[in-house]
């Protein structure tokens, strides 16, 4: 048999992982910030990221059948201070995918609803140093039954994710370092077809999703009104398989990435409840993901729901 040619089907990767680490940054589950008792922060943000190159396993390539793949997102997040050291937060992003070339239709829709409980069990001051420890428990679940079998044009991976994160923060005067690590237990997912090939044929609708870990280092300048920081973020999938040469990406691929970024947040002097935040980041290394660059900007407003708010 001679010439075989077939489906043009683009081949790529999902850039944003299901847990969307970078969509917003107003007191996220990843930082060392807390909302005070009975304060409610409502944050809205918009983000954009795109990639042209991606990693097929370890092979870095581009694809003229996709061109540049971009993700526009908008996210609403609320964070409520039950106590000074116990916050509960929830988030819901809307995502829209677009490719500049090829024929594939980018999908859009609400993605995963996340709920996190952040707790600061311990904080100690030593002179000008403050050391704090945090524990965050989280759960995210798809907000609707979106299509997960159309990577890289679909909006998410459809897995329910239970996560646990430990955060340590050291602040010396106005400088700080935050390190955190999370383990994400991802539920199996179901696709619409009865069989699929990973590194072998599997005759089932169900797809085993590998768990994942996230590690972050953030450092910078922090006062109550201004935060400016740089960060490194690493996502590692514990298991999964590589995209083969010219194959399609799949929901249970190993998806690893290391990103670096900068971030800032500022609360106005005249209206101290109103804040703005923004970040920008770039993927420096990856496996089965796009080499994305992104930025985000948002605004947040803090409502003080305490009955004694007049005194605060």
């Amino acid at each position, binding site marked *: *048999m*001679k*010439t*075989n*040619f*077939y*489906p*043009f*089907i*683009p*081949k790529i990767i999902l850039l944003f992982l299901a847990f969307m680490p970078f969509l917003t940054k107003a007191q996220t589950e990843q930082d060392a910030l807390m909302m005070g008792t009975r304060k409610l922060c409502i944050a809205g943000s918009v983000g954009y990221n795109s990639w042209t190159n991606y990693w097929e396993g370890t092979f870095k390539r581009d694809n*003229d*059948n996709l061109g540049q793949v971009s993700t526009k997102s908008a996210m609403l997040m609320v964070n409520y201070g039950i106590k000074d050291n116990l916050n509960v937060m929830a988030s819901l992003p809307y995502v829209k995918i677009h490719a500049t*070339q*090829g*024929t*594939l*239709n*980018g*999908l859009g829709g609400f993605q995963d609803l996340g709920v996190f409980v952040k707790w600061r*069990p*311990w904080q100690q001051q030593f002179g000008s140093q403050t050391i704090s*420890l945090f*524990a965050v*428990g989280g759960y995210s679940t798809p907000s609707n*039954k*979106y*299509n997960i*079998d*159309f990577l890289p044009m679909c909006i998410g991976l459809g897995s329910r994710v*239970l996560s*646990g994160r*430990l955060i340590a923060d050291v602040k010396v005067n106005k400088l700080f370092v935050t390190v955190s690590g999370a*383990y994400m*237990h991802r539920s*199996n997912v179901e*696709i*619409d*077809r*009865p*069989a*699929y*090939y990973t590194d*072998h*044929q*599997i*005759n*089932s609708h*169900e*797809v*085993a*999703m590998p*768990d994942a870990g996230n590690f972050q280092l953030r450092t910078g300048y922090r006062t109550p009104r201004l935060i400016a920081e740089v960060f490194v973020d690493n996502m590692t999938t514990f298991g999964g398989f590589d995209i*083969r*040469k*010219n*194959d*399609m990406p*799949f929901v249970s691929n190993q998806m690893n990435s290391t990103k670096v970024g900068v971030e800032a947040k500022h609360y106005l002097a005249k209206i101290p409840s109103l804040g703005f935040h923004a970040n920008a980041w770039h993927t420096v290394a990856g496996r089965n993901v796009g080499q994305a660059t992104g930025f985000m900007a948002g605004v947040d407003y803090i409502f003080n729901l305490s009955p004694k708010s007049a005194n605060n």
Partner: protein
Amino acid sequence: MKKVFIYISTCFCLCYLASCDKEIEETNAAYPALQPSKTDADAGTWTTMIAASATDFPVPAPQPTSSADYQQELQELKKATQNLTSEQKRIINFWKAGSVLRWNEIMRELVAKHNLPPYQNDDNTYPVPSAANPFAYPIFPFSNPPYAARAYAYVSIAQYDALVMAHHFKTAFNRPAPYQVDNAIQPMVPKSDLAAYPSEDAVIAGASIEMMKLLFPADLEYLKKMAEEEKNYRLWSGANVKSDIAAGDSLGRWVARKIIQRAKTDGMGAAGGNPALWTKLEDDCKAKGETPWYSLETPKRPPMLPFFGNVKPILFGTDAVPSLRPGPPPSATSAEMKKELDEVLNYTENPTRERMRIVNFWADGVGTYTPPGHWNAIATEDFVKKGYSEVRWARNYALLNASMMDAAIMCWNTKYHYFNARPCQLNPKIKTLTGVPNFPAYISGHSTFSGAAATILGYLVPEKAAEYKTMALEASNSRMYGGIHYRSDCQAGLDTGGKIGDYAIARAKTDGAD
């Protein structure tokens, strides 16, 4: 103290979660042991598909069960069945569901594994997989739908023809199974009244490996391992003595070589064409005043197997091909085409979740076992419930896969005869919900395969005939919903497939099995 406790319990919870069972229960894991409701002992008289006559295959007469040689084999068999390891038991449990069934699964796996279009060269041409050098990139084969349809057909036919021959010799020699000779032997598989020489499982192993090393040469080691396991399982389970197996293996290989002779001369070697021929297809289309298809890939990929339509069909003669080819699609500039384009655009601009489910379910694109494999999987689920003998399993797959190979031939013949454009080529506003295949639109491959498969399956499993028809229609519509086919591609595909399925039914009615 409290926080230490919290941390410990957090860690404990995480460990607990990490250990959650993520194992997938596969649909084919729990198939019952093959226990035919009818042995089909007369299958030696059934009509084969390609192999002509049992006299072509010199199977020697077996030693009688009273012979010293046979008694020696019985002793060896008893030894082999004792103290089985857990791995040996696993192998028995795998194969006892049925050898034809398991090879069909293996084939589906290899088709999926190799169904990858080659990545381009630096100069934006595409490399071509080479059977002579199967391990070099691009690995041979690229098992796209026509390649796969033909592979499924030839392997199924080889298994069927070989089993018919095996039944002929079983009847001729009538040597019983070891557990009927010596009732101290308790087989680990259901007992059968069929004569044991030559072993049908070994026939299937021999025929399958001989065919598949031609079709999937890069997987020879894996195939050998499976064939060895399959033959050993008969020994370990106490179902066949060594000479039953040796005779079966050898008969299977002989029959497969007959099938290979046909496969090597069926026109597949010329199916890829060459640049001059590709240009001619385009020019012929333009000469008719039509809009020719072009590859929507970047860099442009040469058309997939443009002369596969000249491959020799199984169920009808080459001379029937032009009469089975449907009339032309609507002209690219016609009002009818405008209407069909609008319909496709509407589907892609308003993708409902249910339509996306249908698109995904039937996509059967890159990295899958292709539409013919999907219909094999559907058939398998139903065949398992029927209590078929091995030879009936093989016959039914052979009818199914012969019809899908011929469907591929008719479909490709039609596609390259008209060489018409895809919807998103005529209207770039159409953004597809699945990959656009790299060949002309008319007629839809999914529809042709599904029309053929649903028709023959409706004959084989009549109680599900209406359901198969519904599935075929859904498979066909999935291509419109995905934005890659017009309604006329789908309808003409289903009709053409249906006609091919009728040929398979005519064959089934006269092959002696019903």
